[in-house]
């Protein structure tokens, strides 16, 4: 039960309470740039969810097995080179570089794979894939997972692959929800008389501010959920 509770809390937390866009401000560029039409926004949301789960899987694997202090693979290699050494090997200084290359290469692979095997899907959100490499949401997901591996106070609190993936997928879904809602509002805004200086990015940010206020209403939901699930 405790396990289910923690999974539910992570997913609700990432998707709604601490929404990637409206609470952590990551992925603002596509949120402002690609939210003109609902279909496009939805495609972008799907693409981000897709890539973020792959990047989360790869970055968790690298962080857990290679770069965290005392990681198995690194310790094993270190033990081969320096038998009998007691030092804890810590490669976490390489984390950021590894993440950005993991993201860039997984975007490339996803693009090739989709083009070859799922042309319909590729048509739907293939055009967004190159844009995703510089989308902060993906890197932010990797960084949060890193924080829960290297920053965990005890080994029991370290996130396993399951929690990392749940976090990444719900974060992506949260992004999709926010950008699709925004696109829906902007389609209606086209019919409105927006003051000239605010057209485009200005009004989008103002609307996002109001959406962020609405999402603040979710604050505290996790506490209630936890109490409900653990009882």
């Amino acid at each position: 039960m405790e396990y289910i509770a923690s999974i539910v809390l992570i997913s609700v937390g990432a998707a709604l309470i601490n929404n990637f866009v409206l609470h952590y401000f990551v992925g603002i560029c596509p949120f402002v740039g690609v939210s003109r039409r609902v279909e496009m926004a939805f495609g972008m949301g799907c693409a981000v969810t897709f890539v973020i789960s792959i990047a989360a899987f790869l970055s968790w694997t690298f962080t857990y097995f290679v770069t965290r202090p005392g990681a198995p693979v690194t310790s094993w290699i270190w033990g081969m080179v320096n038998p009998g050494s007691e030092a804890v090997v810590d490669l976490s200084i390489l984390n950021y570089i590894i993440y950005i290359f993991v993201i860039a290469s997984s975007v490339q692979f996803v693009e090739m794979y989709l083009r070859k095997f799922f042309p319909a899907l590729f048509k739907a959100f293939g055009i967004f894939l190159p844009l995703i490499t510089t989308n902060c949401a993906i890197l932010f997901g990797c960084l949060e997972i890193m924080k829960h591996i290297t920053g965990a106070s005890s080994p029991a609190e370290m996130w396993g692959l399951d929690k990392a993936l749940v976090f990444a997928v719900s974060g992506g879904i949260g992004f999709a929800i926010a950008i699709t809602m925004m696109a829906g509002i902007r389609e209606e805004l086209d019919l409105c008389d927006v003051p000239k200086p605010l057209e485009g990015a200005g009004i989008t940010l103002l609307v996002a501010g109001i959406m962020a206020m609405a999402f603040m209403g979710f604050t505290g939901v996790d506490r209630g959920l936890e109490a409900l699930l653990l009882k």
Partner: protein
Amino acid sequence: MPSKGPTATERFINGIIPENPLYRNLLGLCPALAVTNGMKPALTMAGATAFVLICANVITSLLRNVLKPHLRILVFTLTIATFVTIADRFLQAFMYDMSKILGPYVPLIIVNCMIISRCEVCASKQSVGVAFSDAVGVSLGFCLGLASIATVREILGSGTWLELRVLPEAWPNWGIMVLPPGAFLTLGLLLGGWNWYNARREAKAS
């Protein structure tokens, strides 16, 4: 030597106001919203970004003649990621509290489109001096952008500026300004004000 493209001074001036990365080009919005609830984090962030941008621009410009076109994005990313790691470690070593406040937004400088676009547009084509002054100009512009948002948010939200009290104690702090919605509203309105001012100036000029 015939110089192609703008000169160093032009690049420098351009970066600050006419081509302001934040208001004009809408680049680097994530840090502009996330770390501007106070002046101190905003200025630290601007400093870290400036360090990365200047180093990346100079290195790219030094390498511009041996750079293979299809490998350039790879080289840019590698350079930026390395300098971001260095900046992050420096913050952790000398400004530990600040690095905790900035949290993931320091590593997120890697995907700040502003830096890679300066490498692409300016540094990979022009000499080191021009690239350097371009980076300084753009960094100043970015710093001004962050500072303007942080000024509004900190004064209204906490009644202080750079942690010095500017509004009387009786001022009811607008809690919303230091929360996420305040960031969106402030940037949206400032952007509107910027556009309005520019439109009016152009109308006067013509």
